[in-house]
């Protein structure tokens, strides 16, 4: 490098070597460079782009993010080194990654009422729940393929039931929870496509809750779903059509009536987990043997599915609205609730119940927080302040703030690994895509 060894400069210079885990066209020479210490992330990003352009003439500039000792640089290099107490004498290794921020805002998908729930765990489609009592399947932005009709009150939560290995991959099951105190299970074929959204009816209605069902989640294997409700109970339900709770008549009827008028079987809970004293606002089922639940009674609990006992009971001082398990080893608990702070706990840490991370850039209640399925560091959150934020555990500042909603955001999720979907009071489902995690 020609700047290397230049002695007569005014600002301090730092010896730097860039490293990356990115693939070959994004690699820069690994020789060390002397950089002015007042460079910020912008400057570093421009530098990397210049270096890449030097090697590849038709390179299109792209934002990068920089990691020093596993922390994202959010100030000038000099300040960062000072703050972290890193010596500027040695050659500094800076890892660069693609900046995590939405590059594209897709057309918003309009609903008839508030969008209360969204699930993007299947890359083929998005499921949304709406206050008009309908669930909707979206193949892409603005392209609604199915309408799930049947709930008599607002849908509060939706969950895609992972297809079982034996079944064909085109048939997908979905569970929805509603304020009408029921859960409904739906089945549809992904391959189908229509000009108009096809109305489908639930194949199974799960009744038993005494109050609004707030949250539903499916077991990873897809055999069961779990629900949390305002009646303080968590109930586990079988998803298969031929369960013993449903009466056989309806099954026969279904066979006779063929596809036209699908009969609905009623299902009852397999087991009930009792312990919460207030509304169970969120349930997550990351592994088949344990269910996590968050409640307005200020606690987060882990339940052993087999015994029905809570193996972890974390008091966290606030009414919790949303919960997700993920991150490092899929065991970090992220939760948000009746204040503007997202807290992350590590339940493996013995002895302490203090959150290991706290993100407080939101200004109102947190309505949703979701871990990225692949990354250990990335988190999306939605808040009543109308913003969706992307977080990286390696910095306390949000990576990106998505401001596409005009009112409260009620739900958010990752989709296809590179998009964030969010729905809110403005009846829109927004998709922010091309996020390079």
């Amino acid at each position, binding site marked *: 490098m020609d700047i290397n060894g230049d002695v007569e400069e005014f600002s301090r210079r730092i010896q730097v070597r860039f490293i990356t885990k990115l693939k070959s066209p994004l690699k820069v020479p690994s020789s060390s460079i002397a950089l002015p210490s007042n460079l910020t992330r912008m400057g570093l990003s421009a530098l990397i782009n210049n270096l890449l352009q030097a090697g590849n003439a038709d390179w299109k500039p792209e934002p990068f993010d920089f990691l020093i000792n596993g922390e994202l640089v959010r100030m000038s290099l000099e300040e960062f080194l000072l703050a972290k107490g890193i010596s500027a004498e040695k050659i500094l290794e800076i890892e660069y990654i693609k900046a995590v921020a939405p590059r594209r805002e897709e057309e918003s998908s309009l609903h008839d009422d*508030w969008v*209360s729930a969204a699930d993007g765990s299947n890359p083929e489609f998005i499921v949304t729940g709406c*206050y008009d009592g309908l669930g909707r399947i979206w193949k892409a932005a603005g392209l609604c393929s199915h309408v799930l009709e049947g709930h008599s009150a*607002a849908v509060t939560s939706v969950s895609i039931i992972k297809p079982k290995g034996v079944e064909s991959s085109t048939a997908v099951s979905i569970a929805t929870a509603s304020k009408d*105190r029921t859960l409904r299970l739906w089945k549809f074929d992904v391959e189908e496509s229509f000009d108009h959204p096809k109305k489908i009816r639930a194949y199974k209605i799960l009744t038993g809750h*005494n*109050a*609004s069902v707030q949250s539903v989640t499916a077991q990873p294997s897809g055999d069961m779903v779990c629900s949390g409700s*305002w009646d303080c109970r968590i109930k586990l339900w079988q998803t298969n059509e031929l369960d013993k709770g449903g009466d056989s008549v309806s099954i026969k009827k279904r066979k006779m009536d063929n596809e036209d008028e699908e009969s609905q079987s009623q299902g009852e809970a397999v087991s009930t987990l009792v312990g919460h004293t*207030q*509304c169970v*606002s969120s349930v997550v089922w990351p592994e088949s043997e344990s269910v996590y639940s968050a409640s*307005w*009674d200020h606690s987060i609990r882990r339940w052993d599915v087999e015994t029905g006992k809570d193996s972890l009971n974390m008091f966290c*001082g*606030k*009414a919790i*609205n949303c919960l997700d398990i993920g991150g490092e080893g899929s065991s970090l608990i992220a939760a948000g609730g*009746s*204040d*503007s702070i997202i807290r992350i706990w590590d339940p493996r840490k013995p002895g302490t119940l203090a959150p290991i991370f706290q993100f407080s850039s939101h200004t*109102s*209640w947190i309505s949703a927080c979701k871990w990225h399925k692949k990354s250990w560091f990335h988190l999306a959150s939605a808040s*009543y302040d109308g913003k969706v934020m992307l977080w990286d555990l390696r910095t306390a500042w949000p990576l990106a703030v998505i401001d596409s909603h005009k009112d*409260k955001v*009620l739900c958010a999720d990752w989709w296809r690994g590179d998009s964030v979907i969010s729905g809110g*009071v403005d009846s829109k489902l927004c998709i922010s895509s091309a996020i390079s995690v």
Partner: protein
Amino acid sequence: MKGRLKERESKLKTKEEKIVTEREVDVEEEDAHEIPSGSDYSDEDFDEDNGTLTESGSEQSEFSEDEEIDNTSDGDGSTDGDYSLQDHSGTVDDISQQDQNDDHSHQEPKESDEDHRGVEESDSSEDEVAPLNTVGDVPLEWYRDEEHIGYDISGKKIKKKERQDKLDSFLASADDSKNWRKIYDEYNDEEVELTKHETKLISRLLKGKAPHANFDPHAPYVDWFAWEDSKHPLSNAPEPKRRFIPSKWESKKINIDPESLKPKLPSRKDLKPYPTTCYLEYRGHKGAVLSISTEASGEWIASGSSDGTIRVWEVETGRCLRVWELGEAVQHVAWNPSSDLPILAVSAGQDVFLLNTGFGNEEEQKRIKELLHVEARTGPDDSNNTASIVSWAQDDKHEGVRIKHFKTVSSVEWHRKGDYFSTVMPSGESRAILIHQLSKKISQRIPFKLHGLPVSSAFHPTRSVFFVSTKKNVRVYDLVKQKSVKKLETGLREVSSIAIHPGGDNVIVGSREGKLCWFDMDLSSQPYRILKCHPKDITNVAFHRSYPLFASCSDDCTAYVFHGMVYSDLNQNPLIVPLEILRGHTSSNGRGVMDCKFHPRQPWLFTAGADSVIRLFCH
């Protein structure tokens, strides 16, 4: 000594001669009395032999001897008064002689005078030489056109001297190098020449120093009364008692650190959680929200507004779920406290509505529908007198029951079991407060005499005790024994609201003058604490069901949250700590926050504003 005396004498002699010669000149021109003498000579004295003067200070006795010698002929004292007497006695003939004496006698006291001053700085006016002129302190311009400047002591006119004309005075000033020291004394009509000493004095005074150069204002303090081998104190008297008892005024002073008088209240941090921040707003009403009520589980909140609607909101999201249009300003809404009977009791105008909210499962709905079904009554054969008070009727429009009252109903309160409820009609006189039973659909007036205008009523949270607050007092009735149990004397001008602690033994009362009274009913019928916090009317007060919190809201657009801990130990008085002032509402038509209710399970407070917004303050 002798030598010095001699010296002194000779000096005086020479002086006398000098004086005589001068005087003689003077006398030729003017009357002897007109001549001011003493000052001149003393001046001379200062001027010429300053040393002598200081010396003479210590030789006062000698001096008086001198005097004696000099004034043998007169044989009189040396004071001014004597001098003047002598002056009187003297004849005109021996003017010169007289003059001489005069001068001496004049000069000598003057000198001694100066001596005195040197020692003890006498300020006495007697030491000064009396001026010749006796006109006193009158404006001298009265004599401007006269030939005389005044009168001497014997009443003779003192003639004015001839004035030097300008030219002469100029020439004189040019000739005389001492002219700048001359000052014209208008009163005595003479020119006074300041001596060097005097000018020095003046210049020192102008500089703000002590007039005498050898006076040291900061002389080291000499303690004459203490010396090394002093065995005894100056005074052997015992220490007086007053030294060690507080004085009359000191004993009246209260010597207490004001900080220590503050009650030892726990820190607010230790009393968390309590509502602090407004995160949610419930918007939709078009008029002031007059009343709110939370559902037992805390999932829903109902609100009644002056725009004639009742709305039910989802607490979590702020979504308005249901609206009833009653067409008349809704005064009060109240959810049935039992969780399986989601019924709203609403007072609007002269009607009380019981509305089916539609929540609850099928069985509950079935029961509610049965409860809210009123058979059309055949009016005439109902001889019961309650029939004339109110009438129960089915209201199909709103899916509920309409209970028609004969006066405007201001509030509705449920009994804890959700079957009975009371209504208050402030202008209903003896039938102002009615108790209704939902299951039997009957109404009856309370069998107690009301003293004053009723404001609101409340059921005891555990026992069959009923609270009625009138404008001045709160009365507590036992519904089983049917008698008045207690009267709480608020001492307030106008009670606006009342809330009962969930334990049942403590009552808070809000008043229109902004005061909040806490009654501990076990303690006394007088307020245990009076909190004066709101500058305007308190509109409502509320207790939390489970947290030790209470709140008051007011027309000043704020709500105050307090920690109100009631201990089960009867010896321990309730602990009241102010926690937070919740702001955010805006004033509308002079009204602020109309109602406040705690969330039944969370430490959150809902406030209903006259600005048509409901706010939720969270911890």
